[in-house]
């Protein structure tokens, strides 16, 4: 038996023993489902969620490729493939959602000191510490590099003052990884550093942001004379922009996928919504003016879906393609929601109360939420700039 066959057998048997029944597909639907983000403040409706995280965390299988010295699984690529397959076969849930895993750990592995890796990565893998990200500021949206949150050198530590916005789940996170200004404002990209801050430090506070669609995971995070040990600086002083760019690419791809998932894979189908609210005529949408517009839109979305497939078949190209997908994924999503709302008539603009179906009310919120798609993770205008400059090579003035 080859090593891989052996690994598969061991993995299968370990999962069989250790993956709790409610963490598999086909679980009893009355058992509550947790969205597991870990951290000090975590609470669980289903104790098996916690158990599953602990077991997977102990094996390092939440980040299976990371080496064992940092608490990872230490698996080879082939082994990871097998692990994923075996988890897929029993319908095992992902044990942990985490910005630490998606964003911070890769940065630490590339730019962190040995001490920093040993300190933070194991806790990320075990889900003991929940991280959030601090980039955007009230004055710096698309122009992220103009950020103003200041970290002053006060001897042993940095003194941080300023404000971050759009920090998702900051109110539930234990630590934040943030971009701060440690150097001069001009040239502005050169004075930025990447800093880790414990949210329990004195002077850190958060406030949730309500969106036009209602509650959101976003927060404002305030730093008022927050003392941060110098050991928490990642990479060189004033060289944080390099890290930031990597992270932004990551984030853009992430939001783009998210937007697409929200759209393409959504259970909300414009055709069935139109048929429900406008009636049917021999199997066709019962209003020709809507039908005509919906048909045009469906064709665009189909073409877009084929373009995603083509990009996959081509093996994934440069960030240029990412810009196009971000742009069209979010703009199509907005357009589709406008059409669904209009086709739903009065039901499409319902907000609350018993007079409306839950799905109709959800549609209203979803429609409003889509308006943020073309702003977060690089606005549509930024994507158009990227395409025209980097892909088409059009000149700057």
């Amino acid at each position, binding site marked *: 038996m080859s090593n891989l066959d052996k690994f598969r057998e061991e993995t299968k048997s370990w999962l069989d023993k250790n993956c709790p029944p409610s963490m598999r597909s086909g679980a009893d639907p009355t058992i509550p489902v947790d969205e597991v983000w870990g951290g000090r403040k975590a609470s669980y409706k289903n104790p098996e969620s916690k158990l599953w995280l602990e077991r997977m965390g102990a094996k390092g299988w939440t980040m299976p490729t990371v080496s064992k010295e940092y608490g990872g699984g230490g698996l080879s690529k082939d082994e990871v493939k097998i692990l994923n397959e075996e988890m897929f076969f029993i319908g095992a849930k992902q044990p942990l959602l985490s910005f630490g895993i998606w964003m911070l750990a890769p940065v630490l592995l590339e730019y962190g000191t040995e001490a920093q890796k040993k300190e933070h990565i194991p806790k990320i893998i075990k889900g003991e510490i929940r991280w959030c990200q601090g980039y955007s500021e009230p004055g710096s949206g698309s122009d992220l590099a103009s950020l103003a949150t200041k970290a002053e050198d006060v001897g042993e530590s940095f003194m941080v003052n300023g404000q971050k916005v759009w920090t998702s789940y900051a109110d539930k996170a234990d630590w934040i990884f943030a971009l701060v200004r440690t150097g001069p404002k001009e040239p502005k990209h050169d004075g930025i550093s990447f800093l880790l801050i414990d949210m329990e430090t004195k002077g850190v506070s958060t406030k949730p942001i309500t969106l036009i669609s209602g509650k959101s995971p976003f927060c404002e995070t305030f730093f008022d004379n927050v003392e941060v040990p110098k050991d928490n600086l990642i990479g060189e002083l004033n060289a944080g922009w390099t890290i930031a760019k990597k992270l932004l690419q990551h984030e853009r791809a992430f939001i783009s996928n998210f937007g697409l998932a929200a759209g393409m894979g959504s259970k909300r189908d414009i055709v069935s919504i139109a048929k429900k609210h406008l009636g049917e005529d021999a199997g066709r949408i019962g209003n020709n003016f809507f039908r005509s517009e919906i048909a045009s839109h469906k064709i665009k979305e189909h073409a877009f879906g084929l373009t995603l497939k083509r990009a996959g078949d081509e093996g994934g190209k440069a960030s240029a393609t990412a810009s196009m997908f971000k742009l069209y994924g979010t703009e199509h999503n907005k357009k589709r929601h406008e059409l669904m*709302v209009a086709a739903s008539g009065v039901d499409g603009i319902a*907000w609350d109360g018993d007079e409306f179906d839950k799905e109709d009310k959800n549609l209203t919120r979803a429609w409003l939420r889509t*308006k943020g798609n073309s702003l977060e993770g690089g606005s549509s205008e930024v994507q158009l700039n990227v395409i025209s400059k980097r892909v088409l090579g059009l000149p700057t003035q």
Partner: protein
Amino acid sequence: MKLTLNEEEQFLKDTAKNFAQERCPVTHFRSLRDSNDPQLWDKAIWNEMSKLGWPGILIPEEYGGSNFGISGISVILQECAKTLTPSPLFATGVIGAYSIANFGNENQKEEYLPKIVSGEMTTAFAIDESSHHNPADTEMTAEFKKDKVILNGKKIFVVDGASADLLIVLARTSGNKGETSGLTLFFVNSNSSGVEKIKLDMADSRNYANIVFSDVEINKEDILGDIETGGETAENILDIARIALSAEMLGNSEAAFETTLDYLKQRKQFGVLIGSFQALQHRAAQMFCELELTKSSVMAAMRAADENSNELQRLSSLAKTVAGETLHLVSNEAVQMHGGIGVTDEYDIGFFLKRGRVAEQIYGGIKFHTERYANLSGF
């Protein structure tokens, strides 16, 4: 038909502008929304409006009104819409006043019009029964029994229905769903036994209700207009209402556009004002043009209403379509150009997005009116 405001109308517009900006900035709407006020409008503000004579604009002088016409009330609503001023003026001062002044009999006029003028009575128009506007689809029944009429059915999405004192209700006195004939309009006191008002919570936080009528008994005298031809009467009232609503939507668009222009002139990105980016400039210029087209469409429709033109129906559908499309464009662009803060509840700009889509649904959406325009135009 002259497409400019006359002196009186300009005066009304200026007065309304001052009133809205000073007494009812958007903060007023916001605080009503946040207070979970069941009525979603403020009695004191309504009293002030009444003192200004606004509910009586469409009412003849003999009943205490000023008879300034659809144009007069429309410019007031346009200005009030710029700050999302909440009030029952649309359902009462436009629909109630117009319906009764034009189709009521002498007794009804004497009973209701002075109360509308004084602001002591508000009204609402109960028309729709399903999620897409279509009066012909009325199924609600009105059965004549001796001297009484028995109403049964459910009306939905009644503007200002949660607070109205007097309801004007379209019900079927003969025929079947889908037929425009066989309909009659009735007055129903909203406190009558068997009337259940269910306040709706819509995206734009305006006063709406679904209203259930269960064996509601009214008098034979409570018919508005002629029996069996209430469908036509309702259509005329609806056209007036659509025009006034288009003026409101124009006001919404104007305010969203102005706010956005201001933002473009203040906000810096990459060291320069974002209003200096040519791509945004061209989009702003396009919005300006669409707004100009909307102003003309609303103006022409107002004039057609006041002059009782045979173009009234077509211009009403034109105005509602153009106002709806412009508000779509402007509210979306406004949020996008504001960037991240545009989608936060803390900023006002999102209100215009919500108000826009709800207003679009009232008395027929863009597709409904586009098709109606084509039908009326003979193609």
